[in-house]
């Protein structure tokens, strides 16, 4: 159990770094979505299922969707 929690923590740290290092907005949306899923995994391992549910739902439905819509509006879909 401890090993799993340690792995999940390291994945969360890596996902956070990936979001910050990525400068292309489209890839950033995917990176943030991945970070949401990995955070939900960590919360599940730390025995917090309700917080994990909230994180999955927010990180995969709301945030990438809004980022993509903002990106489409700003760059006019010209990519």
């Amino acid at each position, binding site marked *: 159990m401890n090993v799993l929690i340690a792995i999940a923590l390291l994945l969360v740290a890596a996902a956070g770094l990936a979001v910050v290092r990525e400068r292309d907005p489209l890839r950033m949306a995917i990176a943030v979505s991945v970070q949401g899923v990995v955070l939900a995994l960590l919360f599940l391992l730390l025995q917090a*299922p*309700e917080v994990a*549910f909230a994180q999955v*739902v927010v990180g995969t439905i709301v945030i990438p969707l*809004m980022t993509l*819509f903002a990106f489409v509006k700003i760059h006019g879909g010209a990519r």
Partner: protein
Amino acid sequence: MTERARRTVLTAGLLGLLALLGWALADLPPFGTSPPTLGGLLAGRSLEDTHATNAVASIVFDYRAADTLGEEFILFAAVAGIALLLRAQRDEVEATSEDAAPGRDVPPTSDAVHLAGVVFSGGAVLLGGYTIVHGHLTPGGGFQGGVVLAGALLMLYVADDYDTFQRITSMRLLEREEAVGAGLFALVGLAGIVGGTGFLANFLPLGTPGRLVSAGTVPLLNLAVGLAVAAGSVLIVDEFLEQALRIRQRS
């Protein structure tokens, strides 16, 4: 300030923050030994106080229900704020998809996407409704189920095009649903003053723990939050979509 100077100040600041963080975090109890404070007390008492088997739900909707009321109205205000920010301004006009490419239709979505979207939409409605209604029994609750319900409606946008989606969201139903959700929360709170000991008191009969109708006002508040969050999320996405796909500069 030049770029180099700014980065130097940033690095110095972050190193200082790191030192302070290390000092503060070293004082926390070791990981895995949560001391027996308020949390332990509430976890022990929540089942007999509220007859809700989900201890987090009983904290969010009974012991600290006022916080959830505030969170509810933050969402309400955010929807209003986004509708204000993303409205068509004076120099913009709301176009249809034809105006951008006259003579060409929006290409219809492929049959596979259509089928998958409809199937997932139905499944998501079921999952969202189940999560909201069982919020006081199992992990989940109003907020999570509400966003899943909003996702079900968004699936319809994926399955078809924006015109279909707008036909659903332009009905006044969504705005009324959000108002009903927020208002129901406040009404249950006021009813607590009349029927119980104070605002947002849990005054309905508590029932047996584990049954669908139990835990007093907790399932009612769950329902209110679920309605408000579902409607609010769809309204927010509709504003963004309208801004991205419809609103153009007046040429």
